[in-house]
């Protein structure tokens, strides 16, 4: 199926320990899916496995995107195919300028073997930094080095805006952000979605961000399985009742 990410009975884990115990999920371009669940339910693992983190092993199932089997592809091939993961904890890379790195990624995504238009790239980058409320000199700073927690999260969104994915996975994009920052990030995610028509998988523990980015579907993940699915109203129920209804002890 075109423009569709299909996950079927995906089982994966680390060093023989199964974390995902059979996940089924279909995300079309233009849709917003929220994956909610308590800590340790495997939400972040799902994002990392879809993107191809080498520490995780896949024990079964499949992940198909645009009729290609993602599990046979290297992480960079998945990215070039239009997949994007906004990291919960973006990595710091010393000595590598934000713009140098992003230009290289941009060249892969849009170059078709040739150098894309650098003027256009710079213009877009400047605009998106501004949209996210980040300083222009961010481009010359080293990738995530010395960025505050909030700056890192916003910089992930800038990267996403520049790389224009088909499907974006946002892993706890609101954690560590104050309420104004959540609003800015959410507005920009919506703007990018509007401009690109991308599909979004929003991984979150709390319902808060869903007030700003209203999902089409909500999936509740507990202990490596999706245990309940519904519309945005399900998120509101969870906000009131917590995850206790799934037999999970409430965290503070």
């Amino acid at each position, binding site marked *: 199926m075109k423009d569709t990410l299909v996950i079927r009975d995906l089982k994966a884990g680390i060093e023989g320990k199964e974390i995902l115990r059979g996940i089924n999920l279909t995300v079309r371009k233009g849709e917003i899916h929220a994956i909610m669940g308590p800590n340790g339910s495997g939400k972040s693992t799902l994002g990392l496995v879809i993107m191809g983190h080498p520490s995780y092993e896949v024990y079964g199932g499949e992940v198909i995107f645009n009729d290609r089997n993602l599990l046979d592809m290297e992480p960079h091939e998945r990215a070039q195919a239009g997949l*994007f993961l906004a990291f919960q904890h973006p*990595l710091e890379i010393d000595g590598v300028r934000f713009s140098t790195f992003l230009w290289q990624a941009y060249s892969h995504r849009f170059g078709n073997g040739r150098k894309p238009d650098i003027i256009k790239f710079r213009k877009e980058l400047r605009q998106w930094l501004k949209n996210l409320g980040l300083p222009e000199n961010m481009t010359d700073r080293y990738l995530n080095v010395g960025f505050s927690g909030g700056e890192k999260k916003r910089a992930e969104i800038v990267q996403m805006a520049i790389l224009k994915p088909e499907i974006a996975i946002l892993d706890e994009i609101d954690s560590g952000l104050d309420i104004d920052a959540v609003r800015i990030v959410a507005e920009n995610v919506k703007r990018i979605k509007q401009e690109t028509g991308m599909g979004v998988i929003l991984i979150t523990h709390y319902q808060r961000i869903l007030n700003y980015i209203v999902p089409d579907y909500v999936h509740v993940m507990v202990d490596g399985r999706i245990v309940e699915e519904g519309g945005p109203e399900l998120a509101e129920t969870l906000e009131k009742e917590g995850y206790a209804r799934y037999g999970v002890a409430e965290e503070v």
Partner: protein
Amino acid sequence: MADRKEQEALLDFDYSKYGFKDEDAVYDFVSEPGLDEEKIKLISRLKGEPEWMTEIRLKAYRIFLEKPMPTWGVKLDDIDFDSIVYYARPTRKVADSWDEVPEYIRRTYERLGIPEAERKYLGGVEAQYDSEVVYSRMRKELEEKGILFMSMDEALKRYPELVRKYFGTVVPPSDNKFAALNTAVWSGGTFVYVPKGVKVDIPLQAYFRINLQNLGQFERTLIIAEEDSFVHYIEGCTAPIYDTHTLHAAVVEVIVKKGAHVRYTTIQNWSRNVLNLVTKRAVVEERGFMEWISGELGSGRNMKYPSSILRGRGARTDILSMSFANTGMHHDTGGKVIIMAPDCRATITSKSISKGGGISTYRGLVKVLPDAERARISVSCDALIMDEDSVSNTYPYIEIEADRVNIAHEAKVGKIGEDQVFYLMSRGLTEQEATTLIVMGFIEPLSKELPMEYAIELNRLIELEMEGSVG
């Protein structure tokens, strides 16, 4: 200045082809392998040197014979001094136009991009091919300021009193076995003299090339920066790939007078069969500033510790070095600072990368003598290890005899992070591009200190070393 794109195009040739040799090279004179006093006298006579220099050579030769081989650092016990050719002169003339340089040599330098670099962004160029300088030229406007830039041999002919005054004062032949050998058989190298208050605003470059198999290259460089002057000197080195060892044992002496500033940059890309054993040292007077910047990419076995002796109050030095030890390579590098006067500052920054079984060793000495109160010193060595087979060692020596000294020392050894590589790959970079970018970032403190053209060259060389690193 040309823009970056142009520079990229200029440097856009295959760096893996540094290792070529000139099959059709013709020599004016090649001495028999091995060394004795007669051979030294012959070299001195062929060069038409004054008697005092012949005496210095012979004295140094006796020191060389007596001095033991260093027992530390890289493997040295297989050097066969009898099989080395100590002197090979391609031509008798130092040309000041590339048209006058023998065709096979000109071709080599053109392949290395030197004449073009000279036209675009250098103030002067000197090219040494085996034992002799074959080309030397400086821009007229620099000449008019009284700057001297020529081969050491020529300086000895034209300015014997200057050479005699400073030669061997910073690195005496008794310093170590290879400094003694260099003093005995030195040939070529650069002489730079910058008059008081003169600032040379574009770099001067020397380019050293070894072509002949079994040749030992023993250039001798002397830089004198008079009070309040500034000069940036750059050296580059390449050689063909042979299956026998080639010895490169240079001596560099730098004199930084009151308030002067010398920046000495090296991009060393010898082929792996070259043993690089060099002694580089500067004395720095009051408020003077000596910068040593080096990128060590080539040479199978490399021992190099640029040194600064801070002799005047408020003198400063920065020693910044990067070395990349790939398969079969052993780099033993670092820096040395001796502080003799109050209020001096020194920084040593070492970045090493080991890959494919390569060995990188940092060896550094900081010595603060009793008079050197209020010295401020910072030493930092970072090692990046690319795989399980590679090795990194750190030997920092610190001796402090003065009061109120502020010293910071930091050493870090890291492996290339899987999560970092994954992060970059998740944006579309291949594994090789991701690791290369991380390595480039690691050496950024060095590359940002280089003129743009050299930073690009360094990046290209690193990309080359990183090729095929991912299975």
